[in-house]
């Protein structure tokens, strides 16, 4: 961990009040400026105080006089805190830092509006129209008894991503010089991967991250990401507590509302959250700590460098201490911190890297955690939608005469995707929905079933490049079924659409795109739509799409009242999104103990990536149309690579455009591409008379990869004798700056009910912020692997999804999981890599390989029991 990027921070009093001044413009000439805060439309300025913060590297901090002078050239002079009380504003209640919310319009983690929503409109417009309103707003900001800092990663902050990429390129070149093995070319992800691209896209706005310390002593980091169980809020709280020297229990991580000024920097996906937030969050917390120390030094009139911090307090050598809450107001007025605001070096870490329980564990086990469907939004009535009998079918006729008269029913309205029923309870809404007399036109794939789609996928491939002339070769073909995301919490969204504005509450991975789309749908300006991001009950990629929120907005508008829309499980299974079905054709040629070429042709049903990722890649400088690439191909190229020296690898993606609902499913293409590769690695090793682990190890391109493989082989007792019908299997994968291997033992003595009986995993993710959280992710990925390889998938029958719930979509239950799971986290080796999706391909491969070895078969179609 090092401060590579010359981050600089300034607190609020030094702000030029009207956006970036000349100094900033000079610093960041080629970086697009964040969207200006809307002012004239009656909405409050977004919480983008960072945009108004003068960003100065502490190493080149100008004198106070210089700053006065420079600020004086800006749109307005810096002002001391205004002693006048702020204008009375209606403030939504928030859970943690009320003072902060006054100054910013931030809302709490659920954005629970209480009854504030309607009156707030009037107050907002009075407060923010024109320059006067803005100055008053800023004045109030300055007067807020709260320390607020925004981290900056300036232009030079391109360093983390590009430096990492450069290091990896150098590493690839270095290992490419190694003898004794026919070498593979590094794939594109070795040079720059999807995460790097997302970080680059987010850099121009990464300084807009906001950390506040309230007089009550709470530290709140407003997280522009979604928590869906991946443990992000806990990891971020740990980073804040670490750099601030705060108690973890004093840190809150509320989820930010949709903040359009963040552009591409509010997209939760690509296992990118910790990678992209690691530097900015540490920078913000370290800067805040420096200001708190400075404030205490002033209060006590002692040298700042004589003070230390611990447990949310500044401590003096003589034993005096001041809690952060007591210092928050004074720290907000600190102009130049008297101590450096640099993040800690690795040897100074006390919390990061230590296994830590979730910060919301108690709320979860007591049932207090609120998901979108649990929110008590006034007047939002339970709503469900009658949907077509086939995927993307359309309504032909509806007779709602019976449904409308049923008890509890408030309204029946038609929307593009079906017919919505609003009622007093979900039970009544569902019963009335079932009483609708509807007929439907068949959807666009009504003539297709699973077998037809598989045949079309097979036909979609480009031919192999290299005909097997004098070399020996091994071919393999693989089918993967559609797989529903099936998060436990079905899609749910609350929408309150009024003539001039709309407010939504849902678990959003891409709230900005959702806001834009919903605004366009409603005919409202984007700024009139508020998206409150609510924690989600699982996602696995599902909540990149805001299908339910869009429908809820349509329904609320049509019915003229707030609604709480829930997709039933059946809705989500039959009309929800799925990992696309795919077919893979792999040919490896070999001779003289070497793998000479490795060709992988993947054909998948077109994956819908239209949730902001394309915009992010474009924002990162990828000109997809110029490169002649589809978004999916760009994604494929940025994520898919063969980690082994297997001669000349080529990988191509062919997409089959079908009008069905697909989406990124945890690990996306790697969940199929790398699994097929890993199965082929096993088969090729056996063909070439080599041990499956040794064969991989000799071809892995880096030592870190070898280390994780060695770890599972050693800890798992690779090669130990197994009874008939049982076997071990391994899988390896690296992506997003992480490496992982799994070794599983599988008992297939009852062929119809194979069971993974033991699993050992090892991972090197650079630096695990919370090893306990990482273990949870690797365990979840294991269960995913067991499910998609052995038993969970979706059939299409004449254009309709066959499965309707967990009764026939057979995601693993307790009896399908190994009683023994052992996970090894390798010591820190660098900056944090992505971990949320990392495990799925390797775990899936290990299960498939163990099954093959236990049964002596070559499984080719997944899930195996389907």
């Amino acid at each position, binding site marked *: 961990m090092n401060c590579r990027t010359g981050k600089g921070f300034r607190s609020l009093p030094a702000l030029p009040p009207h956006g970036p001044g000349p100094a900033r413009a000079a610093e960041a000439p080629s970086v697009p400026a964040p969207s200006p805060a809307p002012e004239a439309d009656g909405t409050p300025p977004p919480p983008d105080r960072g945009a108004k913060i003068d960003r100065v590297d502490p190493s080149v901090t100008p004198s106070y006089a210089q700053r006065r002078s420079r600020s004086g050239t800006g749109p307005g002079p810096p002002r001391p805190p205004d002693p006048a009380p702020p204008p009375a504003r209606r403030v939504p209640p928030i859970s943690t830092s009320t003072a902060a919310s006054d100054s910013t319009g931030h809302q709490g983690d659920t954005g629970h509006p209480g009854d504030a929503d309607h009156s707030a409109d009037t107050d907002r417009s009075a407060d923010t129209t024109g320059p006067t309103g803005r100055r008053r707003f800023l004045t109030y900001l300055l007067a807020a008894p709260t320390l607020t800092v925004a981290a900056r990663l300036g232009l030079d902050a391109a360093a983390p991503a590009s430096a990492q990429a450069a290091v990896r390129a150098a590493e690839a070149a270095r290992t490419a010089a190694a003898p004794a093995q026919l070498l593979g070319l590094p794939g594109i992800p070795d040079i720059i991967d999807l995460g790097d691209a997302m970080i680059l896209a987010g850099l121009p706005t990464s300084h807009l991250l906001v950390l506040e310390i309230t007089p009550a002593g709470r530290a709140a980091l407003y997280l522009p990401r979604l928590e*869906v*169980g*991946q*443990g992000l809020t806990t990891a971020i709280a740990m980073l804040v507590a670490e750099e601030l020297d705060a108690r973890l229990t004093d840190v809150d991580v509320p989820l930010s509302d949709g903040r359009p000024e963040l552009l591409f920097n509010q997209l939760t996906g690509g296992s990118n959250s910790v990678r992209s937030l690691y530097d900015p969050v540490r920078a913000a917390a370290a800067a805040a700590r420096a200001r708190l120390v400075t404030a205490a030094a002033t209060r006590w009139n002692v040298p700042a460098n004589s003070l230390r911090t611990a447990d949310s307090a500044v401590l003096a050598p003589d034993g005096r201490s001041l809690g952060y809450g007591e210092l928050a107001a004074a720290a907000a007025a600190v102009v130049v911190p008297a101590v450096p605001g640099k993040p800690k070096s690795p040897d100074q870490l006390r919390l990061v890297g230590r296994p830590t*329980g*979730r910060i*919301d*564990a*108690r709320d*979860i*086990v*007591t*049932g*207090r*955690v*609120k*998901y979108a*469907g*649990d929110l*008590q939004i006034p007047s939002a009535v*339970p709503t469900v939608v009658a949907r077509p009998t086939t995927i993307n079918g359309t309504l032909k006729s509806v007779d709602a005469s019976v449904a409308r008269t049923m*008890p509890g029913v408030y309204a029946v309205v038609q929307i593009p995707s079906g017919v919505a029923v609003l009622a*007093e*309870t*979900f*039970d*009544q809404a*569902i019963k009335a929905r079932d009483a609708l007399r509807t007929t439907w036109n068949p959807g666009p794939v009504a003539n297709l079933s699973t077998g037809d789609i598989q045949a079309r996928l097979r036909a979609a491939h480009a031919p192999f490049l290299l005909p097997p002339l004098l070399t020996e070769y091994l071919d393999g073909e693989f089918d993967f079924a559609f797989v529903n995301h*099936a*998060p*436990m*919490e*079905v899609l749910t969204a609350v929408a309150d659409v009024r003539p001039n504005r709309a407010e939504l509450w849902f678990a959003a991975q891409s709230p900005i795109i959702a806001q834009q789309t919903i605004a366009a749908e409603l005919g409202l300006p984007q700024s009139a739509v508020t998206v409150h991001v609510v*924690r*989600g*009950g*699982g*996602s*696995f990629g599902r909540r990149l799409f805001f299908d339910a929120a869009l429908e809820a907005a349509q329904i609320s508008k049509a019915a003229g009242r707030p609604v709480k829309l*829930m997709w*039933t*499980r059946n809705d989500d299974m039959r009309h929800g999104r799925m990992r696309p079905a795919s077919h893979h054709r792999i040919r490896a040629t070999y001779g003289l103990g070497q793998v000479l070429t490795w060709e992988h042709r993947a054909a998948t049903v077109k994956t819908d990536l239209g949730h902001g990722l394309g915009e992010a890649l474009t924002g990162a400088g990828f000109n997809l149309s110029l490169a002649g690439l589809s978004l999916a191909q760009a994604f494929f190229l940025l994520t898919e690579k063969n980690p082994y020296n297997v001669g000349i690898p080529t990988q191509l993606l062919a997409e089959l455009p079908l009008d069905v609902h697909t989406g990124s499913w945890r690990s996306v293409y790697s969940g199929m591409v790398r699994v097929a590769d890993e199965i082929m690695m096993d088969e090729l090793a056996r063909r070439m008379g080599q041990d499956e682990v040794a064969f991989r190890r000799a071809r892995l391109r880096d030592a870190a990869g070898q280390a994780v493989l060695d770890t599972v082989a050693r800890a798992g007792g690779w090669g130990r004798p197994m009874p008939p019908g049982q076997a071990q299997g391994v899988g390896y994968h690296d992506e997003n700056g992480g490496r992982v291997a799994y070794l599983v033992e599988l008992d297939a003595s009852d062929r119809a009910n194979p069971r993974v009986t033991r699993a050992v995993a090892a991972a090197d993710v650079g630096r695990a912020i919370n090893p*306990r959280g990482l273990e*949870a992710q690797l*365990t*979840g990925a*294991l*269960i995913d692997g067991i499910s998609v390889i052995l038993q969970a998938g979706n059939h299409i029958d004449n254009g309709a999804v066959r499965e309707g*719930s*967990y*009764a026939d979509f057979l*995601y*693993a*239950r*307790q*009896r399908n*999981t*190994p*009683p023994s*799971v052992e996970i090894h986290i390798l010591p820190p080796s660098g900056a944090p890599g992505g971990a949320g999706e990392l495990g799925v391909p390797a775990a899936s491969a290990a299960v498939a390989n163990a099954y093959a070895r236990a049964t002596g078969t070559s499984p080719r179609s997944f899930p195996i029991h389907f």
Partner: protein
Amino acid sequence: MPTHTFVLNGRSVTVEAPDDMPLLWVLRDKLGVTGPKYGCGVGVCRACTSHLDGQEFQPCTRAVKDCEGHTVTTIEGLADGDTLHPVQEAWIDCDVAQCGFCQPGQIMTAVALLRRTPNPTDADIDQIQNICRCGSYPRIREAIKRAAARQAP
């Protein structure tokens, strides 16, 4: 509309609802008790699992009239004030939860299991049907064993 009276988390409640309304929606939409979650509505995922007279049941498939005069305990009623139930403690100790959505049901199922079988074997734990889509099963197993050990005399 008929009224139904039962004991909910230690307090007698009376609610107006059609006889055949599943208790889940009575709890969630009429009484504002949102700990029991909807995950399927057909008793398969078991995210709503609660206790009826101390036995686990799925409120999504139990009509409210069948709860008349009985005692219903949801996750909200499991702790004794601020003192958590040993199973809740074990869940925190083992950091079981990921997204947390299924965990109220998982915990209520585990509590019922431990009442029936104070020292459950792996085979007993394998009988649990509750889905955890995040795949927290190994920690659920560990937490149940930990709670069993803690409750042992």
